[in-house]
């Protein structure tokens, strides 16, 4: 039989028992929908994760430390590298040299110090670090209350949520719901903090003259060869409150209060390295404890890291972590795919059942067709065509259904995220290949399911079939 005739007869037969065949087709479409939904969730989650990770700066950032730094991340290299005594100092010329390396977006010093912040006359000891303006795109500031620094030199400060809780004296008992950032931000935004810090002054003999917004409280000069340390105070305005932990990768060293980079540099805060590098650093040169290097593309991290190592510094990045992540998503896909196809397997049993029922019901019809000259192949193709048609229809409906389920879940989740004052997220992706794959898979499963019933129908003995009434 020719294909147009086959299709026509198959569709006519499907229409004849429309209820049963539509139920079977719905079964297939639910199967395909669950497969498409599961896989698009997996794909969407992966896309979201990589988007997030790129934004988090984990994958395009290299942290550079001096080899003298005993807190260096890689102990092995310290042993194999050049003698620590001969290693280079991580100072401003070194920073500029690193910034000139190919594929480097920027290299900025990690200014990080522990000091006291006074809020409503109560002291709070915390770690402060400086942020470049490029950090604004970091996703930690996405759900932020308030705004980012108005300029790189503004006397402004952004607080991490947990520090805000500390300032407000809101320590939550375990298990209690966390207060939202918005709640915490309201009493704090626009308020002032007073930061007390130790300034590294270039001239030891004469204390630095007090500037407009600074007040030299005590002339606590330290008898040192190259510089003195002066205690100073700085007023800071709270402009933002971030929910996520910006510096999660730094572990116990992470800061909870952030200053604009240029402001922090201008303060010349005493750094821990100042003491250790005292013998080597020129008196007017700041020595950095570490430098953060941002690379144009996560793929170039390795090559930039190698180049920095050649300059004589220690480096650290999380390139290997991404490999593990890809593996994780591979496994996740497989699992989601298996769960998704379980429904399709159930649907294929439905196809077998429907077609076997159709054979029983249409025994006589098959007998008639054979008596008037239908070959085994004609009968077989007819049943195949019916299974295939249910597969195509079910596949198309299933892809649409899966997409719709995704949209609904995405919509619902975003309402939830909004209630939690989190930014909306697109974690559902149906790429075109998944659409094609979904439909082809449905047709494939249907044809495989149709094999047995079609074979049975083809082998039906016409004499028996016609005798049956």
């Amino acid at each position, binding site marked *: *039989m*020719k294909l*147009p*005739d086959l299709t026509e*007869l198959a569709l*006519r*037969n499907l229409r*004849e028992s429309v209820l049963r065949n539509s139920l079977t087709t719905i079964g297939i479409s639910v199967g395909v929908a669950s497969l498409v939904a599961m896989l698009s969730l997996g794909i969407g989650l992966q896309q979201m994760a990589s988007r997030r990770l790129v934004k988090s700066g984990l994958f395009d950032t290299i942290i550079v430390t001096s080899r003298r730094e005993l807190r260096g991340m890689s102990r092995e290299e310290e042993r194999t590298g050049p003698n620590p005594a001969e290693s280079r100092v991580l100072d401003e010329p070194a920073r500029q040299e690193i910034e000139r390396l190919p594929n480097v977006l920027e290299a900025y010093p990690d200014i990080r110090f522990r000091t006291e912040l006074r809020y409503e006359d109560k002291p709070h000891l915390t770690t402060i670090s400086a942020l470049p303006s490029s950090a604004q795109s970091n996703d930690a500031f996405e759900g932020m209350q308030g705004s980012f620094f108005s300029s790189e030199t503004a006397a402004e400060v952004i607080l991490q949520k947990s520090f805000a809780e500390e300032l407000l004296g809101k320590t939550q008992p375990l298990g209690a719901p966390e207060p939202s950032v918005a709640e915490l931000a309201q009493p704090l935004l626009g308020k002032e903090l007073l930061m007390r810090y130790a300034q590294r002054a270039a001239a030891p003999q004469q204390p630095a003259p007090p500037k407009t917004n600074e007040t030299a409280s005590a002339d606590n000069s330290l008898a040192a060869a190259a510089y003195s340390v002066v205690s100073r105070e700085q007023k800071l305005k709270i402009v933002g409150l971030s929910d996520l932990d910006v510096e999660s990768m730094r572990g116990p060293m992470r800061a909870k209060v952030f200053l604009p980079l240029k402001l922090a540099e201008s303060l010349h805060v005493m750094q821990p390295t100042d003491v250790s590098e005292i013998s080597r650093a020129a008196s007017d040169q700041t020595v950095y404890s570490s430098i953060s290097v941002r690379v144009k593309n996560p793929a170039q991290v390795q090559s930039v890291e190698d180049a920095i190592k050649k300059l004589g510094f220690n480096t650290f990045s999380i390139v290997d972590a991404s490999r593990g992540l890809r593996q994780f998503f591979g496994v996740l896909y497989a699992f989601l795919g298996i769960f998704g196809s379980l429904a399709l397997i159930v649907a294929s049993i439905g196809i077998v059942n429907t077609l076997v029922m159709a054979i029983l019901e249409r025994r*006589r*019809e098959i*007998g*008639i*067709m*054979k*008596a*008037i*000259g*239908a*070959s*085994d*192949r*004609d009968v077989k193709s007819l049943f195949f065509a019916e299974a295939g048609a249910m597969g195509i229809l079910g596949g198309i409906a299933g892809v649409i259904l899966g997409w719709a389920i995704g949209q609904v879940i995405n919509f619902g989740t975003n309402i939830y995220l909004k209630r939690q004052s989190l930014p909306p997220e697109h974690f559902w992706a149906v790429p075109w290949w998944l659409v094609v794959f979904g439909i082809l898979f449905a047709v494939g499963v249907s044809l495989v399911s149709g094999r047995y019933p079609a074979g049975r129908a083809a082998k039906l003995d*016409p*004499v028996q079939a*016609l005798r049956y*009434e």
Partner: protein
Amino acid sequence: MTAAPMSSLAVAVRSENLCRHYHMGETLIRAVDGVSLEVRAGEFVALLGSSGSGKSSMLNLIAGLDRPTSGTVVVQNRDLAKLSREDLAKYRLHVVGMVFQSFNLIPSMTLAENVELPLRFAEVDRSQRENLVREALDRVGLRARKDHRPSELSGGEQQRAALARALINRPQLLLADEPTGNLDSHTGIEIMDLVREFNRQLGMTVVMVTHERALAERYAERMIFLADGKLTHEQPNPPAGAQPGRQGHA
């Protein structure tokens, strides 16, 4: 064999010692048990016998719907026992037309679609089909009913549609299994007149199974009697002029 004066000398159907046995539980059923017969091309033959005599089994063997346990059946020079399933289907499609007691039209299709079905299997071009179907329905006088489903028609109309379907692929052999069994006598005669018309005008060889001796005597040129799967005797019908049926309606 007996003379068949109205037909040519060519043999359309020949069986030799044809047997069809099957088991029903423990017992062996000899549905057809060593039947040897010949039907000449263009002849109108009736197979007669009581129910269970094996006449329908014999017809199924000639139709290629069933295969013999032993013996041979040759139709239009084809040894049916030696044909593959595929070739047997082609044989049924092109050489044989069949009508049944219960009409066997497909209930979900209109008359035109039922008549068209063998053309689909024969992969005849869509453009030619319409004409062929119209021609066949015209011949049986059902043109006006072509878009009706079988359930909307009388038994006689259904059987006429079945005849149109049997004739659509221009077969040489028409096999009829109790074609009037479900019809009243008046309608039965209409159908039989059509069958005879096919026999005479189109030169189709007709083998009809029936248990109504009167019907066989009226239309057949020769009667073959079966009992318990065996051929008991044959009886030629008097030639044309002596039979009132040959002049039309009795």
